């Protein structure tokens, strides 16, 4: 008996619609966000994460209205990421009913922003989203670098150094996405997950690459993740959250029934 490992469906949202890309590029439509959130809540999702990938800043308000609608009906933690650049963005999302915000690119350009946001609103609502890609050549010691702009731009920053710094700056949680695995259905990069989880004192959410039930369990058992996040396997009805939980339980992982 103790804290349950969390299962988090992730909804990528573009102009108010749920979509899912493969390796951040190819986009497939997966439906209405409010409907998705309601269904995941009924199936037993422990949290829901929305990533706003809307390109144009003209359409930013679509996500605010969507969060308001979801928060009126779904009473589990909601995280919103994408386009969070300043304190006003954080406040706007929290006021719309989000419980946490995900900060990615803005943290890289201005790490102090994470400090300011954590000071102002509390660490509990600041999730630092990290997109990491393996950059070491075969034969070299494994090394991961962080990328920004939805995985398009390298930064030269070492992923393990970065998460340690974000932990120090007051992040409440790390959402760790493997760019090599995202959308591939080959499973998490569990070496990356484990190293990050051992580096920080805060919880780590593993993301990127889930294709099977085994992958979800491995993220916890091998990758030492505190939560596992997946998108496409839920959206396209391959697995239900209840199935994932039953399976994880059979592997000895504590989950919320």
């Amino acid at each position, binding site marked *: *008996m*103790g*804290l*349950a*490992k*969390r299962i988090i469906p992730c909804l990528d949202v573009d102009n108010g619609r749920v979509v899912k890309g493969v390796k951040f590029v190819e986009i497939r439509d997966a439906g209405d966000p409010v409907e998705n959130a309601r269904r995941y*809540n009924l199936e037993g999702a*422990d949290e829901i994460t929305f990533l706003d990938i809307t390109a144009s800043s003209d359409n930013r308000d679509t996500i605010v209205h969507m969060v308001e609608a979801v*928060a*009126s009906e779904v*009473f*589990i*933690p909601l995280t919103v990421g994408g386009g969070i650049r300043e304190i006003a963005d954080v406040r706007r999302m*929290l*006021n*719309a*009913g*989000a*419980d946490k915000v995900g900060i990615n690119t803005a943290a890289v350009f201005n790490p102090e922003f994470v400090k300011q946001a954590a000071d102002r*609103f*509390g*660490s*509990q*609502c600041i999730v630092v989203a990290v997109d990491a890609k393996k950059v070491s050549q075969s034969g070299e010691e494994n090394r991961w670098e962080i990328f920004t702009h939805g995985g398009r731009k390298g930064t030269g920053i070492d992923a393990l150094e970065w998460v340690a710094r974000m932990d120090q700056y007051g992040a*409440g*949680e790390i959402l760790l996405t493997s760019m090599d695995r995202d959308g591939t259905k080959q499973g998490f990069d569990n070496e990356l997950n484990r190293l990050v989880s051992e580096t*920080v*004192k*805060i*919880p*780590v959410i593993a993301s990127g690459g889930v294709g099977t039930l085994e992958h979800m369990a491995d993220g916890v058992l091998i990758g030492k993740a*505190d*939560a596992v996040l997946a998108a496409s396997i839920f959206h396209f009805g391959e697995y239900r959250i209840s199935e994932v939980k039953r399976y994880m339980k059979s592997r000895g992982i504590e989950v*919320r*029934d």
Partner: protein
Amino acid sequence: MQTIAVIDYGMGNLRSVTKALEHVVDKNQKVILTSSQKEVAAADKVVFPGQGAARDCMLAIDEYELRETILDAARNKPFLGICMGMQVLVHSSEENGGTACLGLYPGQVKYFGGQLKDAKGERLKVPHMGWNQVTQTRPHPLWSKIDNNSRFYFVHSYYLETESPDLEVGHCVYGKSFTCALAQDNVFAMQCHPEKSADAGLQLLTNFVQWDGSL
């Protein structure tokens, strides 16, 4: 018309709390989010939420001049403290190098520590974040229709150590056993977030809006 006042002192995600309450009230009740001493004093029931650091919470309470209003509500009407709204009810917190709190009850708020381990010796992360089991240590109207050991959503780095065992109505285990719900007379307060705890949380809020404050 009954009024349930959610105290707004600028700390935390008050929108979540009001939305969840609006979801469970009956047609003769309304929920208001307010910083006004007068409105809190006039309300039939009071919810005292809170997030963030203890010192900031205490500073905000004084900045909004709500200290006496909160204490007065806690002495007189059905009162629900949530998260930091539970922690600041006791004497003091270790947070921010030591923070004096409202002192309504004897007790101390302490840091989980960097060396927290579970029963198998695995290192535990801080904050304690996610769904953990709440063991009901004695009956209370707010536990009505909620199974013992139901899971609630937690997010905190500091925990409550009550000096008076009579105060505890619920405990939780995360590396150590700690008081996650306390109650006395018309006051019920919990570390976890009922507004984010799906069915169990909505049931607790339903029980609160129907509670007359008696045991």
